[in-house]
């Protein structure tokens, strides 16, 4: 029990220290971690507790059978804690799928992530990344539509990509399945003064941009400049 709680706390502390090392920005006084780190730490602690309770229940069932004394342990180990652990898993998993590292998990995506994070790259995605126009989850932010259904369809597409990757049903170079929709750019840019005052976006062109008749990428390409990907 003490060990599992300690592990959970260590998970939170370890996560926090990694974040500090990567950001190299000191945390403000009283900083007690992020929701993500607490979710991770508590989830790990509860999963370990669940496994410990199952081991104890297994030994007691083996020794005495399913007597009344074991029922409470079984109830917590089989019906209560697993649901809580699944909840934490969902919370962590869904958020984790939106990170750049998750997108770069399949190695055909590595050149895209390297290009994204290359400060010398002038590709559109890299410009957004290095200037922090998007603060986090850069791939997901630009490759998912807005609203609840957009996030669901992005995750469904992601699962499809993993299945294609695992089964080898894809060809190189990778190509976007359908033309990149302007609405993903315009959701952020359309109301900005920089966009509205730009000579490149005169008032008579804006309806075409909104309708998608003219693609943002017609002028702002390339979106990515990856080096050759390997299978």
């Amino acid at each position, binding site marked *: 029990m003490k060990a599992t709680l300690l592990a959970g706390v260590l998970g939170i502390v370890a996560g926090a220290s990694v974040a500090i090392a990567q950001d190299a920005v000191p945390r403000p006084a009283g900083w007690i971690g992020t929701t993500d780190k607490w979710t991770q730490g508590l989830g790990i602690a509860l999963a370990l507790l669940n496994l410990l309770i199952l081991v104890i229940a297994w030994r007691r069932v083996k020794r005495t059978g399913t007597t009344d004394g074991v029922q409470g342990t079984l109830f917590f180990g089989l019906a209560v804690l697993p649901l809580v652990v*699944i909840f934490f898993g969902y919370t962590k998993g869904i958020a984790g799928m939106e990170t750049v590292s998750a997108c770069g998990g399949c190695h055909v995506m590595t050149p895209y992530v390297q290009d994204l994070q290359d400060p010398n790259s002038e590709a559109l995605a890299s410009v957004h990344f290095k200037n922090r126009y998007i603060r986090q989850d850069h791939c997901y932010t630009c490759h998912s539509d807005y609203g609840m259904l957009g996030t669901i369809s992005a995750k469904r597409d992601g699962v499809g990509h993993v299945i294609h990757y695992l089964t080898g049903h894809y060809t190189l170079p990778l190509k976007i399945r359908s033309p990149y929709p302007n609405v993903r750019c315009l959701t952020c840019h359309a109301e900005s003064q920089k966009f509205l005052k730009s000579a490149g976006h005169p008032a008579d062109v804006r309806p075409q941009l909104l309708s998608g008749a003219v693609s943002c990428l017609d002028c702002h390409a390339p979106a990515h400049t990856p080096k050759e990907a390997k299978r």
Partner: protein
Amino acid sequence: MTAIKAAMLLTAIGVALCLWLLVGVTWYNFLAFMLLAQPLVLLGAVIYVGIVLRDLRRKGAL
């Protein structure tokens, strides 16, 4: 006895897969979580509920 052990084993595998996801999210363990962990935990819970209902019927409580 065998059924309750099967329920415990299935739940333990499901929770272990959850633990893998919680330690660090990748597409692999996320798929394992979605396609394996949840059905295994659900199956374990269903078996457990079945055992409890059977015991209650045997004792005449239901």
